[in-house]
């Protein structure tokens, strides 16, 4: 970009914009294709599947996904599981992060290493043990079983991220509360919590997305629609016969669950990018 020659400059700029166009097409096309398919009626799908633009827009698939599939129930389950997971993990990790970020005690770095090790645990490594544990606790095919099992990948993440946020909070704030005779929990919830709101929003959002998208545990620990979440439902929609996959309906369901996520990500994109990179680059 630093050439003085105008022709070279023009070519470089043109190449750059071609690169931008290719990238945009590459990242956005599959989603566009899902959107387009979701608005094509199933009777026209085989004829119009390869057309670039829809000719007869219809909401048919969006109605079918709620009438022929228990998708409303699946959405409800997913909301309950993801919200419950976020609330529980933020509560637990807020207290833990306060201790890890502001207190001095023996074994702290060992504990941090263990938490980090858990975060790279392959879910499959605990699947068998978790399955028998969940059955023994009577939580098989229940949203509570999913919330509990999701702690294995959400908790290390929230503890780790919140700890790095707590560490950034000036110690004076906490000392002042201590001098005033505030108990640790009062200090945490009335002094530190207000300062941490942005951190909690970012961490909670990423935890929510992770819990919302989880598939392996949701597939293995549920057996019917009283607890099945959206990912399991979308992966297993079936049509009238076993040879006919209802792609229009699947795409409609996909669009329904993806649009809120995309909106959330766009609203919080600055926080997400900094949250992700801070967590990742610093370890």
């Amino acid at each position, binding site marked *: 970009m630093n050439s003085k020659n105008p022709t070279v400059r023009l070519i470089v700029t043109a190449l750059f914009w071609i690169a931008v166009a290719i*990238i945009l097409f590459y990242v956005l096309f599959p989603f566009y294709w899902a959107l387009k398919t979701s608005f094509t009626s199933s009777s026209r799908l085989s004829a119009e599947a390869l057309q670039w633009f829809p000719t007869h827009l219809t909401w048919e698939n969006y109605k079918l996904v709620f009438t022929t599939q228990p998708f409303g129930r699946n959405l409800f389950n997913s909301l309950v599981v993801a919200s419950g997971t976020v609330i529980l993990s933020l509560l637990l990790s807020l207290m833990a992060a306060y201790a890890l970020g502001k207190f001095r005690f023996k074994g702290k770095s060992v504990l941090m290493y263990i938490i980090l090790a858990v975060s790279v645990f392959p879910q499959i490594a605990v699947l068998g043990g978790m399955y028998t544990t969940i059955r023994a606790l009577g939580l098989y095919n229940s949203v509570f079983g999913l919330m509990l099992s999701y702690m294995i990948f959400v908790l290390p993440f929230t503890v780790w991220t919140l700890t790095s946020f707590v560490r950034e909070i000036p110690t004076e704030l906490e000392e002042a509360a201590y001098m005033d005779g505030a108990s640790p929990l009062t200090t945490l919830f009335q002094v530190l919590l207000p300062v941490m709101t942005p951190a909690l929003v970012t961490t909670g959002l990423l935890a929510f997305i992770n819990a919302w998208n989880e598939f392996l545990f949701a597939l293995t620990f549920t057996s019917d629609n009283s607890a099945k979440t*959206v990912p399991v439902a979308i992966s297993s929609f079936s049509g009238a016969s076993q040879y006919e996959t209802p792609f229009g309906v699947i795409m409609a369901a996909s669009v329904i669950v993806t649009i809120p996520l995309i909106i959330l990500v766009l609203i919080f994109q600055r926080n997400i990018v900094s949250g992700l990179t801070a967590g990742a680059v610093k370890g």
Partner: protein
Amino acid sequence: MTTQPQPTQPKPAPTRVRGIEATRARTAFWLLLPMVIVLILVAGYPLFRTIYLSFFDYNINSPNPPKFIGLQNYWYTSPEGVGLGVLQAPEWWNAVKNTLVFTVLSVVLETLLGLGLALVINSKIRGRGLLRTAILVPWAIPTVVSAQVWNWMYNDSIGIISSWGNKLGLLQPGQSFLSNPDTALAALVAVDVWKTAPFMALLLLAGLQSIPSDMYEAADVDGASPVRQFFSLTLPLLTPALLVALIFRTLDALRVFDMPFIVKGNATETMTMSIYARQQMIDNAQFGFGSAISVVIFLIIMVITVIYVTSLKVKFD
């Protein structure tokens, strides 16, 4: 992860201060206790239980109680000379091969593509904000959704990618890259690359933006070409961010389950280690054998993590 700087020579602290320290340590203990209990319940105990079950012959649907068989789930040759252990099973080694191919291909492609994306977004031209937003879309889409969308695009008869493949003469009509066992794994790599290269780009972008711009100005003054600047300046300074991103992606790819399972189920040509373990454990109800597979996967991933962390001297802070 900072260990607080220890005083170089332990001075006898005034008792009051020591009392405060002790109280603080006790408070920390109570603050940490709930989190530690939950972690033991969802990670420690299930892991221990999986390891324990791997020494048993245990069919969860059979009325017979689990029978201790030592290491036979790992390695056992029957009197007839048939290898029954995991490490003797051709299906296991097929899953290992698939997982390794998937991991190497997807991580390499994601890194190259992510680097390219990051460089374009990092250039000082209008539209970078738009690009940065757009690449978040694949990342925000749930894995299940991206698997189903690509599954649809790969459809044998009316998938758009199959129709492109037809036009380019790569596919016979009615065929798809997914249904052909030779190309199925590569087709899955393409899905993973689409979904994850943007994430890689974001990590690398953070690395790029931490390179001070006066270094480039100095390189410009010295007359270094953009290519030279990339290889002698950008790449070396980006290495730490690149390595961390590589570790994350490798570990993710090694335990991959969702996407290949949703698209291809238990198909042999795309069976990964995690899919094989779940098939044996849940579908075939072989909890002992399945647990042995889980343990082997766990060991593989832990060994790779340790090698990575020690050889790269990753610092946690």
